């Protein structure tokens, strides 16, 4: 990991949750929430992570931040192995890495005022207390578009979007380098979504942040990220710096892309409807995890696991037949092409 552009690198990260059951509550299985993920995150970029819910996105984010202990693998942050740091070292690391949780209501203590909630990281880490803390908190709140009036209120007095912004302010209090945004817009309505996304982009520029942007909504992720990772059942199946709508190489990605509605009714194309249930992460399918639902599946797919292969320009795909498959054209592709043609 000598590459100085790399802020955080994950190697073969695994996170299994034990599943207890039976009469004596013995461990009867493992939930393979994150299974062998390798990923480099570069300074200043936004890496998007997309996938159906339950595929392990949140677990990935939490494990990276050491909120969960990894089952196996290695996490390197700024050249330092942080997989097993503990105590005050861990707390020091946490200042640098923050997370905005999925549910903004639940991530604020209902009995603590906004001032104290946002100021808590400052207080704990001995950055500021009293009037200085107040001033810093106010500054942060103003940056996310709240005012002094909001300082001494309780979380329940705010709307979902406002709470999300309060959470963002709190994560920024310690001036972190790396922020995991876990579905920051999933609990707000569309009009607020755009505002929040723009705010996050502005903040990224202002603070020089690196984002990991998690969402199950492909268009939102695409709008935000420089590179995009598609997850399926605990694994990354495609990682691309390119426009995913134009060049999906993995059948699963294509299915996701083709399901995104197009704003213009003139464009239509082939859509792949994913059939069947998402298999259980307790007993993931052998070989390619997508094979029970994949329309291109061959015999090899159920026996041999496809590895991530570079298809050029850092476009990684985990499919035996990557690049050889003809998906046909989805409406999204057509639309993207037309938009591009119009622009040029």
């Amino acid at each position: 990991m000598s590459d100085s552009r790399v802020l955080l690198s994950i190697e073969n990260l695994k996170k299994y949750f034990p599943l207890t059951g039976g009469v004596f509550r013995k461990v009867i299985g493992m939930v393979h929430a994150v299974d062998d993920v390798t990923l480099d995150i570069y300074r200043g970029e936004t890496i998007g992570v997309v996938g159906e819910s339950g595929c392990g996105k949140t677990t990935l984010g939490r494990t990276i931040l050491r909120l969960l202990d990894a089952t196996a693998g290695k996490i390197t942050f700024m050249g330092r192995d942080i997989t097993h740091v503990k105590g005050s070292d861990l707390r020091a690391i946490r200042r640098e890495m923050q997370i905005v949780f999925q549910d903004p209501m639940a991530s604020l203590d209902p009995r603590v005022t906004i001032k104290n909630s946002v100021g808590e990281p400052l207080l704990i880490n001995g950055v500021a207390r009293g009037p200085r803390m107040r001033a810093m908190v106010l500054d942060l709140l103003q940056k996310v578009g709240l005012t002094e009036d909001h300082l001494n209120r309780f979380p329940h007095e705010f709307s979902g979007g406002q709470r999300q912004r309060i959470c963002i302010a709190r994560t920024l209090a310690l001036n972190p380098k790396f922020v995991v945004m876990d579905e920051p817009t999933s609990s707000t309505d569309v009009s607020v979504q755009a505002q929040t996304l723009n705010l996050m982009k502005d903040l990224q520029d202002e603070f020089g942040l690196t984002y990991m942007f998690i969402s199950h909504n492909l268009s939102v992720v695409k709008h935000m990220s420089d590179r995009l990772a598609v997850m399926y059942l605990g694994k990354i199946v495609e990682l691309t710096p390119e426009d995913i709508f134009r060049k999906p190489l993995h059948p699963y990605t294509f299915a996701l892309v083709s399901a995104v509605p197009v704003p213009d009714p003139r464009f239509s194309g082939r859509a792949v409807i994913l059939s069947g249930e998402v298999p259980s992460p307790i007993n993931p399918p052998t070989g390619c995890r997508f094979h029970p639902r994949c329309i291109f599946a061959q015999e090899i797919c159920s026996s041999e696991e496809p590895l991530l292969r570079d298809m050029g320009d850092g476009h990684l795909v985990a499919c035996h037949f990557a690049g050889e498959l003809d998906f046909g054209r989805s409406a999204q592709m057509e639309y993207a092409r037309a938009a591009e043609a119009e622009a040029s």
Partner: protein
Amino acid sequence: MTVRGDNGNDQGEQESIVVPGLVHRVFPSLHIVLCLAAISLGAAYLVGNFVAWFANSFMHELGFQLPSLLIGWPLQALLLVVIGYMNLKSGRAISRGDAWAYSSSLYMNAVTGVILLTIGPLGLLPAVGVFALVLALFAPSVKSYWYREFREDMGPRGKELRFSFHLLRRSPLVIVGILIVAGYISVAFLAPWITPYGPEERIWNDANLAPGTPAGEAKANSLILFSNYSADISIYPEYTRGEVQVGPEEVTTSLPPIIAFSGYVRDTGNDNLTNVLVHTAVYKLNLTTFDSLSPSLRELYLVKSVEKAMLSRPNIEVNNSPSTYVWVVWFVASNKTVPWIVDTVVTLDYNRYYPIHYWGTDNSGGDIYSRIIWAAQVDLRVSLSVVLVALASGALIGAASGYFGGKLDEMVMRITDIFFAFPGLILAMAIVMALGTRNLENISYALMITWWPVYARVVRGQVLSEREKLYVEAARSIGASDSRILLSHIIPNTIQPLIVQATMDTGGVLLTAAGLSFIGFGSAAGTAEWGLMISQGQYYLLNYPWECMFPGVAILMIALALNLVGDGIRDILDPKLRRRG
């Protein structure tokens, strides 16, 4: 130090506050000395208590005696050590120049002072010292900080509180409940002043009177004119006499005042007591005239005289106008061989009246109204102490079990399972039975043992669910330590269900205690206690139903009120119902 108005930008202004130099140099060291003193005082008390306990239980025969100064106050001692330790931290912060720590040390010093005050005479001096320190050094220098912080922090809390009151006002049943509970508590405290009779006072002639009947015997205020206990009669006859002025203010009721004598002769040997006569008399005279008159002339002014061997209680009526009386007591002993011990009391009973037995009397002439009110003291004390002890121990065990989890949790849960396998009344029954003696203390102990698992379960469940909440993880993600998470996020969020549970349980414990008392586990017959009163009244149910009806209404009302309040505050505190706009 400049203080501007509130409207400007606070930032610069607050930064500019400077702690006066002298304070800054002197205070931290003084403060740290104080903390160390508090810790060592507390530790000394704790050790003293332990030694005393040890000495009392094991070294009794050796005649070992500990200085009494060191015994007692275990709670205060513990608090002193804990607060002293916490305060030491803020003392260090101050000496490092963290001006903001002044406010927290101010609070803690004030608390230390209050605790010292409760230690009695020994704590008075240090407490005065602490308060002087707080006032002289602290308050002026930190006022501008902590007041601002206080106001800003209390602002939203005050708003929530006002909102709670607003919700409260909209639920009349809760208000009724609160009023009843407050009424019971104040009545229990005021019992000596609002009851005509004591808890165990009985007028045997007034048994089984219906509600509203006036008493057969008058009550009065008493003025002790003369009392002499354990006097020996050596010479006979021996006189004691005195003068009393009776004015119209002593005659506010229609009954005339009386002067009552009571002379009781105890014999230290085996002599026949009939050898002693106690003579008592009252004359309408003043003392000088009395002394100047001859015995035969005095007879003219005699109001009444009584003589009796052992006890004389002459009810001597006195006229209704302001005048002077002389009372005389003398003993005549014949054939005196051993010392006689004589207890003599002379009282003036004035403002006599016949109290009305509002709620009737019981079969032994006790006034039910008075007894019910006195019993409020007893029953409330039992249920409150049970709930408090059970709450404290159960909450501690439950919090530990929930937070640490694992083996400890499994063990605690199995133990509570076992306790839950018994219905409360029946386990308490078995415990009292095993303890041997039947009294209210043992009932309390039994109920404490029976009730703690309830709180252990409530707190554990709450801690477990809070522990999983996202905001706890959020706190962890910003680097909060375990103790901070427990103290400032988990515990505040578990307190409210505890309050609700405790309120409702106070009623439940009261019912169970009364039930135990009813089936014969309570105090000795005659004690003023609701369950026991019902138990004794049940035999007269058909003819004198009030004897068990009124105590039952008393229990029902307080239990109902406590349940209403518990129910109501649950709704008021419930964040789901509370949310607005």
